[in-house]
């Protein structure tokens, strides 16, 4: 044990005299822009995105067409929604590996509740709401498991991932439910102002995510907990409750992502979320929502979503094989994470 006189609350001791000192009587200029290393990270990922767009545009005339812009945005929709959700978990300094399981369960749920080839149900909007609520319930389960049983989120969400896939497989029952709900199918097929309806849904979800992050206790406390959990607790923040709430918010977004994926696939598929967990974590980190917690946010994560989507789109147009694409994505993620943690690497004493 540490002796009583040395056991101070472990606040990160900040380096003295950073940042502008206000002149006497004057006020420092106030902005909401991210600062310090956050700003560097966000600027760097934005620059990378712009650079990538420029390079692909020069290389390939097809890339710079308006149709391709629409294609990129539409392709980013599901990943964007899922990444918004995941961002809340990452802000806590936790991790969520349940994404694909939750999406599988929610995808089957929505496919079986709207008009479909297997059940006689035709719940329409209500089916979507139930799927989103189910996602939130899965998230809440992850959150409660890790806060109440004090198990790292890495493991609880891995368990919830398996549970989700199991639920999805049971609901699947050997026969794929084909979606016959014209309204839901229209999310993927109908256009509004040039973009697929699903893209507008995604835009709405991003906005909702940003508002949650900026204006609600769940969002702000996620920053506080990720920034310094012990200090938040000392200040009287009910840390466990708000952690669980942030996981639930994340789950709701996964549920919505599942609905969108189902609309695109035209049927309830157990593996609807395949590959999304990795991509969402990668997108968030590339954008500046670091795994250390309390850094970045929904909008930063969106930069990462577009980095990944543009990259994929550009590689396809350039004729790179899909197998190589995955490897390239992996390399870029590791490089981006290394770059993102570069300014703080000396503080990472032990890396596990």
């Amino acid at each position, binding site marked *: 044990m540490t002796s*009583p006189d040395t056991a101070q609350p472990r*606040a990160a001791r900040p380096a003295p005299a950073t940042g502008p000192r206000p002149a006497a009587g004057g006020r420092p200029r106030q902005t909401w822009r991210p600062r310090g290393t956050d700003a560097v990270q966000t600027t760097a990922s934005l620059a990378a995105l712009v650079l990538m767009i420029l390079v692909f545009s020069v290389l390939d005339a097809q890339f710079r067409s308006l149709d391709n812009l629409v294609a990129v945005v539409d392709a980013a929709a599901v990943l964007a929604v899922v990444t918004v959700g995941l961002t809340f978990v990452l802000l806590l300094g936790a991790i969520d590996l349940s994404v694909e399981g939750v999406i599988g369960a929610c995808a089957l749920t929505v496919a079986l509740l709207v008009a479909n080839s297997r059940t006689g149900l035709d719940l329409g909007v209500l089916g979507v709401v139930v799927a989103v609520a189910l996602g939130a319930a899965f998230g809440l389960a992850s959150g409660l498991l890790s806060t109440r049983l004090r198990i790292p989120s890495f493991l609880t969400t891995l368990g919830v991932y398996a549970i989700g896939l199991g639920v999805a497989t049971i609901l699947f029952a050997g026969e794929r439910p084909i979606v016959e709900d014209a309204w839901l199918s229209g999310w993927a097929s109908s256009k509004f102002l040039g973009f697929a309806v699903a893209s507008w849904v995604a835009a709405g979800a991003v906005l909702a995510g940003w508002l949650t992050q900026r204006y609600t206790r769940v969002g702000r406390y996620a920053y506080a907990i990720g920034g310094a959990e012990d200090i938040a607790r000392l200040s009287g923040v009910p840390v466990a409750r708000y952690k669980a709430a942030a996981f639930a918010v994340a789950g709701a977004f996964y549920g919505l992502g599942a609905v969108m994926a189902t609309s695109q696939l035209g049927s309830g598929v157990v593996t609807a979320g395949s590959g999304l967990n990795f991509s969402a974590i990668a997108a968030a980190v590339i954008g500046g929502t670091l795994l250390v917690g309390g850094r970045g946010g929904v909008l930063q994560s969106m930069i990462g979503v577009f980095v990944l989507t543009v990259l994929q789109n550009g590689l396809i147009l350039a004729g790179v094989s899909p197998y190589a694409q995955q490897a390239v994505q992996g390399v870029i993620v590791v490089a981006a994470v290394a770059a993102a943690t570069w300014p703080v690497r000396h503080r990472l004493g032990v890396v596990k």
Partner: protein
Amino acid sequence: MTGSPPVLSVDGLTKRYPGVTALDGMSFEVRAHEVVGLIGENGAGKSTLLKSLVGLVTPDAGTIRVRGEAVRLRGVAHAGSVGIGMVFQEQSLVPNLTVAENILLGAERSAVRGGVYRWRTMTALAQEQLDKIGSTIDPRARTDTLTFAQRQMVEVAKVLTIEERIASEPVVLLDEPTSVLERDEIATLFAQIERLRKRASVVFVSHRLDEVLEVSDRVYVLRNGRVVAEVDPATVDATDLHHLLIGRESGGSHYHDEAQHDCDGAPVRLRVEKLSTGGCRDVSFDIRAGEVLGVAGVQGSGREDVCRALFGAIRASGGRVTLDDRPFRLGSPRAAVRSGVGYVPSERRTDGIVPPMSVAENLSMAHVGEVCAGPVLQARRERGLVEQWVRRLGIKTPSPQTPIGTLSGGNQQKVVLARWMIDDDLRLLILDHPTRGLDVGAKSDVYALIRDLAAAGCAVLLLSDTLEETIALSHRVVVMKDGEVVTTVETPKGAKPDPVVILEEMV
């Protein structure tokens, strides 16, 4: 003021940890609008006392009364609700939130309605708190863009939010508030304390005597977990306080003084020239073989930096170090170990041992080569070596396979020392608070080991919690202040200087 009960009174507060009594019947009181100073050396019980007062430590015995009413504090938030707030030494603000959010964190009141933030209200409420202390800090600024002194002001503003929660005036505890401030910032803080006194009572905890005397109406001197004196700053000076602070421990045998080995004429083992790190500048000294060199200094003097940089645990920005006249590479603990340097860290639990691993594994950790044949660990050889050292140092353990985390602090520390002593070619041992948290008997054993090591020709660099210990064990003491060496004092056997002489250089 007379007649009404004191705002805060502490009576017979006691807290025991295994092997240490941190608080031993501590009693004192704070009256309305009073600034009370608490001084004491490390280990005097200051931190435990403060933690008891904000509910982070539950005392074993004794009572805390707020305005005459006994309270059992359950945590910082609860302490706030009865009117006790603390400005922590290690600051307790969330760096990535705004100043306003930090001030109101956990108690946002009307700034959050139904879980939704109303930023305008939040900024206004935070501004009210900042206005109380006349601060010009922008409540919308992100906290990690502020200077350390500004952050401290934000903490004071945050503590004052408890005024809104209680009907009466709060008690504000300031834990070593000046330890990281510049001179002009300290002046600002003192002005702030004067301002604070109009609306609150203040407890000012520090080991800087002149500061305590300057701001306090009354001063309590703490030693060994209890109040040993209550003094009026008007009638005492720093030297009087020094004597009260250090006290006198009887009998030199505690430190095995007679065993102090003479090292005059021994060759220089370690030579440090102009070592600089984030916390110290141009530090130069040398240690002879068989010499114990103490480094004295208050918190923030940079002495921890010196020894951690020497072992390579933190980075040095400049300096030249030679070991036995050969250049010594800084920055790599592995290189340090290979050239015969050992390090006993101050945080034994986190840096010194691997609690779930066995005594044997912890002991052979730094020199696994001694018990290996090629890459293969030789269990028998390890057992033999470990049993030998367990016997030699009198380590009380059920067996060498017992997880070290279950032993007492003193026995753990002996294992940590043995870890380095098994190296026949140990040339320099850096001891960073080697007796921290140990009881008297274990301390004495550790002292004896240090004497033995020195007698065997090992150079020892010693940082210790108390000045008395430093002086007793060392041949010479280097005094550091504000990151620089201010003087070196000879402390030979039989002619140990008065600690006050060194203390005056430190503060």
